[in-house]
């Protein structure tokens, strides 16, 4: 338990140090080292904590805050179990890789900027770790919001660019919308269940005291929050735009950690989901929709980071579908592998961008010669994403598909399988356009420095090896967690699943190879032929336009009405009162001549009246 606290404290201390000591922050590189050191410490501590959990089971440490007489006390607590420990290791690990990579990628930044960047990184790390280690919904919400703040600050890091500033705001507001649902869910669950603490909520759901519509509404509220953060349809709109931030940020936040927070939350409350079939059905349905829709949008993208962004949305859809289908363990496994290979892909993309100063795939080509390491690591990541044996992505994707099928959702299985085909296609389209193809893009392109390649290599190794025994390890860790009292069965999926999955993946790769590699068919011609469909995909299924129209209709109109009301009615009343007061004062002024004797008349008259009254009584 102490190690969990250390893991939390290290980035917090780094944040405080960099934040409160301006000379440190302005010095740039030293601030970066402080942050990197802190996150390394956090990783080590998290690993030790995980080992502890394996040895002695879940642990909880609570602190009472402000005990009141007439109200149950607010309890802050750290929940260290298999799920949170694994997540903590994952978060700290990816964060470390990204921070080290940033030392190279962000080397062009001015010193104070660099310090600010790493301060934000420490903030984010602290918030994310706090989120996964929370033992109750309210605390999770607090850290949830803090994570959102970190995301906003990091997306909008280059805030002088209007596009970046807008993207940061868009991300913040869209997730905020979901967070309203989260807050409602927290409160409803507390009202119905009498507590915020996860383990207690699970107990009450199990024994039936927390059930019915209240439970469903509460869980739905939490899901809304998760949907916002994890970019489920229709909240996904913020993620593609969030690519305005620096690429390492995209790797950390929008691949591995923050977007995973939603999935993490849903995995955490799996026992509650088990009791709300309606909500679970929605989670599954929206997950499938999200997965398929965003895969289609990735097909036509030119910007390599956008391709990866849509890919992330799509994979998050996979995870949520698994959760909705009842296979939360599979979802978490896929979350873990996705964190590794998606972060890897982003870092490789960052390597490309750093060297070529462009995100556009059509300005790239044939780069495998000049950037072999980047090409190799990107390839590994792409294979994992497509789900090719024996990479980790293959195993986790299959577990997801198997889980969905196991619980009898055949249509969902078909949709996810089709999505797998599209996934393989678009990622290898990107691979071919960037690294192969006939063009020789930029003669000055060079490989990235070791400080950037090393984290990529580490992630690549993880991606490659995590498949072997990964599922068993994850299942074991989940078994020692509060959310899975009956453990997770690490079984093998029915043979049909890996066969179909691999077939879909290989078909997609083949299609990409034939079009972009061999030139057997012309993607440009196809694009021209299917122009209307392409336009829909390029306009992101017009979802952004829909949101804008809704905003105009639902928000601006009432504000105009209220504004009119305020200007003419409220102000009108106030102004009328002041006018009347002024007129009255003008009228009454005549009585004040300034001469004492005039006032004395009234005094004496009054005295007479009083005397008369006194005499009468």
């Amino acid at each position, binding site marked *: 338990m102490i190690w969990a606290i250390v893991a939390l404290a290290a980035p917090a201390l780094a944040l405080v140090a960099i934040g409160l000591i301006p000379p440190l922050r302005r010095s740039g590189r030293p601030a970066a080292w402080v942050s990197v050191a802190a996150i390394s410490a956090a990783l080590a501590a998290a690993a030790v904590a995980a080992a502890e959990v394996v040895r002695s089971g879940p642990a909880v440490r609570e602190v009472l805050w402000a005990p009141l007489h007439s109200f149950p006390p607010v309890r802050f607590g750290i929940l260290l179990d298999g799920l949170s420990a694994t997540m903590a290791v994952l978060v700290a690990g990816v964060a470390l890789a990204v921070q080290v990579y940033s030392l190279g990628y962000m080397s062009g930044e001015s010193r104070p900027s660099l310090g600010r960047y790493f301060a934000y990184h420490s903030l984010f790390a602290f918030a994310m770790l706090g989120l996964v280690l929370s033992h109750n919904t309210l605390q999770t919400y607090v850290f949830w919001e803090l994570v959102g703040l970190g995301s906003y600050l990091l997306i909008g890091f280059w805030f002088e660019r209007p596009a970046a500033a807008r993207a940061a705001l868009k991300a913040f507001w869209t997730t905020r919308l979901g967070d309203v649902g989260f807050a409602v869910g927290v409160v409803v669950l507390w009202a119905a269940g009498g507590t915020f603490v996860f383990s207690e909520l699970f107990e009450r759901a199990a024994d039936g005291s927390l059930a019915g519509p209240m439970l469903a509404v509460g869980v739905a509220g939490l899901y809304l929050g998760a949907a916002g953060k994890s970019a489920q349809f229709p909240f996904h709109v913020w993620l593609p735009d969030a690519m305005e931030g620096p690429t390492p940020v995209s790797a950390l936040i929008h691949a591995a950690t923050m977007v995973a927070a939603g999935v993490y939350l849903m995995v955490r409350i799996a026992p509650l989901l088990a009791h709300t079939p309606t909500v679970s059905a929605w989670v599954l349905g929206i997950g499938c929709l999200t997965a398929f829709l965003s895969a289609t949008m990735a097909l036509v993208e030119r910007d390599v980071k956008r391709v990866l962004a849509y890919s992330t949305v799509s994979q998050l859809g996979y995870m949520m579908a698994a959760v909705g289908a009842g296979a939360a363990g599979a979802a978490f496994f896929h979350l873990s592998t996705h964190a590794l290979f998606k972060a890897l892909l982003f870092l490789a993309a960052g390597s490309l961008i750093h060297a070529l100063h462009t995100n556009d795939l059509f300005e790239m080509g044939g780069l495998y010669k000049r950037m072999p390491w980047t090409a190799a690591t990107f390839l590994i990541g792409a294979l994992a994403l497509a789900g090719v044996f024996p990479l980790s992505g293959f195993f986790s994707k299959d577990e997801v598909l198997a889980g969905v099928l196991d619980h009898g959702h055949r249509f969902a299985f078909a949709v996810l399988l089709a999505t797998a085909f599209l996934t393989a296609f678009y990622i290898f389209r990107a691979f071919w356009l960037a690294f192969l193809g006939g063009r020789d893009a930029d003669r000055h392109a060079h490989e990235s420095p070791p400080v950037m390649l090393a984290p990529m290599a580490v992630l690549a190794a993880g991606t490659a090896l995590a498949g072997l025994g990964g599922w068993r390890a994850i299942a074991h860790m989940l078994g020692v967690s509060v959310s899975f009292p009956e453990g997770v069965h690490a079984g093998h999926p029915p043979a049909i699943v890996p066969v179909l999955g691999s077939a879909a993946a290989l078909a997609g790769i083949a299609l990409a190879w034939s079009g972009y590699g061999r030139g057997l068919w012309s993607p440009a011609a196809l694009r021209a032929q299917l122009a209307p469909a392409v336009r829909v995909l390029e306009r992101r299924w017009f979802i952004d336009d829909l949101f804008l129209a809704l905003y105009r209709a639902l928000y601006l109109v009432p504000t105009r009405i209220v504004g009119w009301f305020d200007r003419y009615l409220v102000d009108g009343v106030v102004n009328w009162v002041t006018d009347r007061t002024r007129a009255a004062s003008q009228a009454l002024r005549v009585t004040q001549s300034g001469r004492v*004797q005039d006032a004395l*008349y009234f005094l*004496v*008259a009054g*005295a*007479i009246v009083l*005397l*008369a009254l*006194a*005499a009468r009584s």
Partner: protein
Amino acid sequence: MKDLAFYGFAAALLAGAVGTVVSRSLYRAAFSLAATLLATAGLYFLLTAAVLGAVQILLYTGGVLTLTVYAVALTDGERLAGPRWRRPLPAAVLAGGLAVALGSAALSVEPSVGLGGLEDGRALGVEVFTTYLVPFELLSVLLLGAIFGALVVARKEREP
């Protein structure tokens, strides 16, 4: 005998009062007031409050009147430019009303002959310095303040 004195003093008092209010010359008004005050002092003596009568003569008549005469002399003297009165009618009406109101109250009092016994100066002194000690001290402060106040207010501007 006492009644005769009373009526005499009363007549002098009223005559002086009217004179104060009516006189065109300020000096004449001041001295009319002096007459009224002296008549009042006489009445005090009749009402057996001898000490008070002495005080009335010394302070009131002597002090107040002297001050007033000084003030008149230091400003522009007794010349009264313009009419004596402003709007005498409303003033008269109100004063009359007041007189009626007060007078009817006065007449409703039982016509008893007074008990008197107010001539004991020693007892007066004792009362002032025991029961009324605090007011006495405050009065000293007030007088001090008045002296300084008057000095400061009325002194000539100093040449810078």
